[in-house]
């Protein structure tokens, strides 16, 4: 991490014009901090609820448990917000790291696109699933489903 190149990469001599101009660094910097603060609440809440406060912790996490949570709008919104912020925060952080260490223009472009696409896919996928999720899928083994499915 700290053992990096001896000499700056002269493929980019002192701040070439190509890397100048308007940018979103400031917004990104503020976002990292704002999202970080919110994420603390969301992630710590998430971890505490799932792993500490639910009796049995990780053992109790199964379809029934998650389905039960995601049936409630409160947890739906919690998880979606967490998803968006964490992915955006993490991806922006990864973008910084790629910019720092990947100097070959080709590889850098590929890596940045990969981060972007991964972020988009996961955010769309996660959001869709959270809101279109059916906790009591038809024909499933009742014992695996949240307890309220039995009442249906």
């Amino acid at each position, binding site marked *: 991490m700290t053992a990096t190149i001896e000499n700056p990469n002269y493929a*980019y001599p002192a701040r070439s014009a190509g890397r100048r101009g308007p940018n979103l660094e400031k917004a990104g910097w503020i976002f990292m901090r704002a999202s970080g603060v919110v994420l603390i609440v969301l992630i710590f809440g998430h971890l505490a609820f799932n792993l500490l406060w639910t009796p049995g912790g990780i053992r109790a996490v199964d379809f029934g448990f998650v389905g039960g949570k995601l049936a409630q709008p409160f947890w739906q919104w919690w998880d979606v917000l967490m998803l968006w912020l964490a992915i955006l925060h993490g991806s922006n952080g990864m973008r910084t790291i790629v910019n720092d260490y990947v100097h070959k223009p080709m590889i850098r472009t590929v890596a940045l696109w990969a981060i972007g696409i991964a972020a988009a896919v996961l955010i769309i996928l996660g959001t869709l699933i959270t809101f279109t999720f059916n906790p009591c899928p038809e024909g499933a083994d009742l014992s695996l489903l949240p307890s309220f499915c039995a009442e249906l």
Partner: protein
Amino acid sequence: MAATQITDNDTTPEPVDSAAEAADRQVQAADAIEEPQSFPVTVIVRRYDPEIDDEPRWVDYDVQMFATERILDALHRIKWEQDPSLAFRRSCAHGVCGSDAMRINGKNRLACKALVKDFDTSKPIYVEAIKGLPLEKDLIVDMEPFFDSFREIQPFLQATGKPEKERHQTIAQRERFDDTTKCILCAACTTSCPVFWTDGQYFGPAAIVNAHRFIFDSRDEASQVRLDILNDREGVWRCRTTFNCTDACPRGIQVTKAIAEVKQAMMTGVKL
């Protein structure tokens, strides 16, 4: 030269006597100490001569040193008594010209401000060039990229109108940017910055420090211009608050604090 008898008709207030006496006792105690002794120190220097070497190499030297001497003295002793081909920069020898920033035992320092007594001399002392600027020879690096960044932030007062005498400034306004006026452009900070090492593109703490010196000068009218320059992909936002710069600065400048103030000025405007 006529040395008349000792007189005691002082007109200016004398120092508090107890303090003077205490100082005297201290000094007297110090006087009693015997002659200082020199002792051997191993200095391992990372040498590189582009005309001969493919790669830098570590070379050991044994030198006799006194505890109160500086690493610069050790380098001089090597150069003057053992191997005159050793190349390094230096000038003032007391930490004001910024010539001899180098990495000593893994940390950036000025060789002329690093005292032998502050090192564990039972182990060798490692000396190598600062990191992140092109290595030219031995302890000498190419400083041009560093000065390029400095020049880019428009490091000069920009003020319209020509006052008849001086531009006025209150003591408090002057104090506001005092810390960053101390910079001697030694590059110890910039070349200690992990972000700078990655690609050498980051403006670096020294450039930001010097921008700060003008941004917070009440006489200057181009603060916004400098803020815009540093609101760059390679500008202040790249700082990850690792504090290596602050720790390395031989002038004791609170570099990271200055960077934070510049960031804040970008968000909320300059508050003088």
